[in-house]
């Protein structure tokens, strides 16, 4: 069986499949993504594995703990470590979340929703600028899934647009998150995507989710991508101004690598088809 070489599609690298991944004869992703929190300052066995991975594939960083939307001060020591790590492994892309994960000097280890308010938008934009100044590069900001609004004073779309405008950062479009949010908050996912500054999309995430109540989806990254999310992805790609990398995220309930490879294959085919058309039109 020939090894599938992906041009657009990458995968979230997990320790659960690390060894099999290194020797797998099924596919070679276009890149891998890791959370810096899981790899910075790690030595021994996992450093050895990571060094092999980083020597084989381009690495993207997707942060979890920076808490861009949080009230606490930015962790500049951590940012310095990120910068060093990016340099050491020649990492070109760092993304983070439009959420908060730290409050009152306590890390919370999950992504909490921020209030859609103008002061919050300005606060976050200023912090993103600080991060970009420190790292010397633009970061990509991910719109997170959320399950309840929090003291909102403006629409979600206006809020996101304001943050991106003020921060002058890139957008990480997690298509599954948009689907989840549209379902949970009863709006049209396609229409919502049309309100975003799509020229800023630098990177796309795709993942599965879980329906836990008739009116609530949790963004678990523990299931395969559903057809509706593939459909939304397919409709979104032609709206972008250029080709962007696409990531398959799978953090829980991880299946065999071949199963993940099959999901990546679907994403790759959509990219090949839609990106080629985009190119033809241009």
């Amino acid at each position, binding site marked *: 069986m020939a090894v599938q070489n992906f041009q657009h599609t990458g995968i979230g690298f997990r320790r659960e499949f690390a060894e099999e991944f290194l020797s797998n004869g099924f596919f070679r992703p276009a890149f891998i993504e890791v959370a810096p*929190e*899981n790899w*910075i*300052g*790690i*030595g*021994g*066995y*996992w*450093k*050895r594995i990571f060094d092999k991975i980083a020597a084989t594939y381009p690495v993207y960083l997707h942060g979890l*703990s920076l808490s861009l939307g*949080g*009230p606490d001060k930015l*962790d500049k020591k*951590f940012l310095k470590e990120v910068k060093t790590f990016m340099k050491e492994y020649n990492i070109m892309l760092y993304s983070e979340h439009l959420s*908060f994960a730290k*409050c*009152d*000097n*306590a*890390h*919370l*280890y*999950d992504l*909490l*929703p*921020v*209030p859609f*308010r103008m*002061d*919050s938008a*300005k*606060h976050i934009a*200023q912090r993103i600028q600080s991060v970009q100044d420190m790292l010397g590069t633009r970061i990509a900001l991910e719109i997170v899934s959320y*399950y*309840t*609004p*929090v*003291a*909102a004073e403006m629409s979600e779309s206006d809020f996101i647009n304001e943050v991106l405008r003020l921060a002058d950062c890139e957008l990480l479009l997690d298509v599954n998150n948009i689907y989840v949010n549209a379902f949970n908050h009863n709006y049209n996912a396609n229409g919502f995507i049309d309100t975003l500054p799509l020229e800023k999309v630098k990177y796309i995430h795709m993942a599965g989710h879980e329906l*836990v109540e008739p009116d*609530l989806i*949790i963004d678990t990254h523990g299931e395969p991508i559903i057809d509706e999310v593939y459909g939304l992805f397919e409709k979104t790609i032609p709206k972008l101004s250029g080709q962007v990398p696409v990531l398959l995220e799978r953090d829980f309930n991880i299946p065999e690598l071949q199963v993940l490879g099959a999901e990546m294959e679907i994403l790759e085919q959509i990219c090949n088809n839609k990106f080629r058309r985009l190119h033809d039109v241009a």
Partner: protein
Amino acid sequence: MMLHKDTRLVQQNFARYCRTGGKIQIPGVLPERIPYYRKMLSTVIDETLISAFPLANGLIDSKEWADAVENFFSLHDCSAYQVWKIADEFRQFLIVDKKELFQKYPVLHDLLLFEWTEMDLFNTPDTVPVPIKGSSKFFGCTYLMNTEIRILQLSFPIHLQKAASLSDADRGIYIVLALRNPESKFVEFIAISVFHAWLLEQIIQKQSIHTILHKSENIFNQKSTEIRIQLISFVNHFTNLLFIKST
């Protein structure tokens, strides 16, 4: 600071709810949805700690474990951005705030230290082996020692027996060396003598062989020739474990 006081308070209340489950009123928050956040955060903490302390988790009654984890998350401000490091914060929290657990489970202190050490040493950044000062003069070649080690002093032989089988009759002083195998990179535990533990500490502190011999004669009240024999035996033993190597 761009963030208004009111917005900050909203976020603080949201985070506080997630940690404690206490009642809050935040405009727009759906009361039937916010518990999902508390559950998700609690699950991350609990699963991380169970993964870090499988033996301690197995020893403690499940209700006591659940209470300890909940108290930890609600009362302790986790400072590590790397979630695996909260294991040590949890260990230290229990020592200070859950003394009754250590009275009920005398081996718990050792178990938590043992399990944390294994994880910490397994993940610890790589270090360069240090030369054993004066080894070329004494041995005829320079020896390098791996410093990816921890020396533990335990009160129970948890490295030899199951924790649940140990009683006060087993209480004593047990010196255990945890070392990260330079080839496999996995952590191994070896019972060592007080003398070997002392030697390791001296070498890590970059004391020369000459100084070590001189000090050990006084501290251990042994003849110089006996000390020399023990030193050679020590180097041979740890060379076999790939822990000391000659250049």
